[in-house]
């Protein structure tokens, strides 16, 4: 278990860093990497005896402290009690617009995805929304989404307490500037490069001439991740935890 960090561990560590300072983060039911990032932050804060981080995993019994039905998450966000949330997207465009509905002309879209879920509300209500999509291809990151489930920015005068803060993919980490609006590539994950990311991204984004690599976790963080966080993950995402453990072991034996 002392091998170098795997690419997923680097992702998880990057997410924990993006969450720094939140008191309460909510994660969708099928989002093991964001959940792992939040669990890692919680563990780091507890080690540092800093303010407690609360994690709600929707649909989980273990990590569900809601008692007022499935409306409570949205109420809680409306009350300003949720600081961060993760959002995916079938399509995401350069203005931070998210499409969870489908490809082609609505309503009879040629590809239909499940639907907008709570995004059309939470993107406005939660201060720090982290866009997370592992697949980094031009069909996901488009110039303009075919359907706006949730808009990246709003007109002045429209109530908006939050919105996109960052975008994390399998290739890199972007910040979002609401004033421009647009993304900026902040770092590139190890084994990827700028040219590859440009080719895989359907929208223009800002970047340094030579963006840094996304930092790997330090020893202490890696130990927490491979110990306590992996155990916690196992309770809620047994399949994912087992996969992650195999990757770690594979890395270690290859090293």
């Amino acid at each position, binding site marked *: 278990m002392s091998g170098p960090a795997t690419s997923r561990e680097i992702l998880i560590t990057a997410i924990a860093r993006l969450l720094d300072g939140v008191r309460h983060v909510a994660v969708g039911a099928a989002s093991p990497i964001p959940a792992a990032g939040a669990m890692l932050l919680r563990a780091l804060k507890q080690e540092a005896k800093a303010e407690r981080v609360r994690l709600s995993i929707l649909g989980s019994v273990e990590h569900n402290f809601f008692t007022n039905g*499935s409306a409570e998450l949205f109420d809680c966000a*409306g009350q300003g009690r949720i600081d961060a949330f993760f959002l995916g997207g079938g399509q995401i465009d350069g203005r931070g617009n998210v499409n969870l509905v489908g490809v082609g002309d609505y309503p009879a879209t040629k590809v*239909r995805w*499940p639907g907008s879920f709570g995004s059309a509300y939470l993107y406005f209500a939660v201060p720090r929304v982290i866009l997370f999509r592992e697949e980094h291809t031009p069909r996901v990151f488009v110039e303009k989404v075919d359907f706006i489930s949730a808009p990246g920015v709003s*007109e002045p005068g429209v109530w908006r307490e939050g919105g996109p803060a960052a975008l994390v993919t399998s290739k890199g980490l972007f910040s979002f500037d609401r004033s421009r609006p647009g993304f900026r590539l902040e770092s590139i994950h190890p084994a990827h490069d700028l040219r590859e990311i440009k080719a895989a991204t359907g929208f223009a984004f800002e970047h340094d001439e030579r963006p840094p690599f996304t930092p790997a976790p330090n020893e202490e963080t890696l130990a927490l991740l491979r110990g306590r966080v992996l155990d916690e993950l196992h309770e809620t995402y047994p399949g994912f935890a087992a996969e992650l453990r195999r990757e770690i072991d594979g890395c270690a034996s290859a090293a």
Partner: protein
Amino acid sequence: MGSDLRRMAEAVQPGMCIALPVDYAGVSMAMTRPLIEHGADRLHLVCVPTGGLQVDMLIGAGLVARVETSAVSLGEAGGAPRFNDAVKSARIEICDATCPAIHAGLLASQKGVPFVPIRGLIGTDVLANRGDWRVIDNPFEAAGDPIVLVPAIHPDVAIFHAPMADRDGNVWIGRRRELAAMAYASRTTLVTVERIVERSLLADETTAAGTLPGIYVSDVAVAERGAWPYGLWGEYETDTAELKRYAAAARSAEGFADYMSGDLREAAR
């Protein structure tokens, strides 16, 4: 037991608006077949706030004219094949919503008011495609501040599954309070349960806190493992393998028909 479910299904008439709960809240899968056999069609489904297997099956069986929902999927088993196909071929009308807007519409009904406001949504194509919603300027601000009003959703029938009911029709819903919201908002509420208990669920404060009172419940029938292949909180887990079996079969209309008839044979065993 089968006859009870068939009797309950008769409460559903063609063209009615039917409220159904989210996967994990207690889906009365046991009612799906009686509903299909009963055959009341042109249904308007309201998913509270998202739909899954039951919605896909009712669409596949040709009973559905419109779906109001925040999403329809089979979760880990992937997209909902009959729903996706019906949307793509425009065989059903899709009213895309967002979860808290569906809760807001039911809340308006619960409170006996014509609408409830909701934040967000401004600038989305969800809103742009909802001619039944309104945007007003918040009357408590001097200028501007647009806000969406969602009209009350009044389902004719709500259908769900719960762990238990008592002899007075009181139903234990625990912390799944969206089931209560559905019942408050609906004219008729049909409930299947794992078991009937002999003590009154309202008689002690501990169980009363998680109980939907019988005044909101029109009919109750026992259906053991009635959420299967979905799970039921505190009772049993979701049978993901079965969901995947369905997802694979229902990619085509023929596969769906085969699955449903195979399922019929199993039920007849």
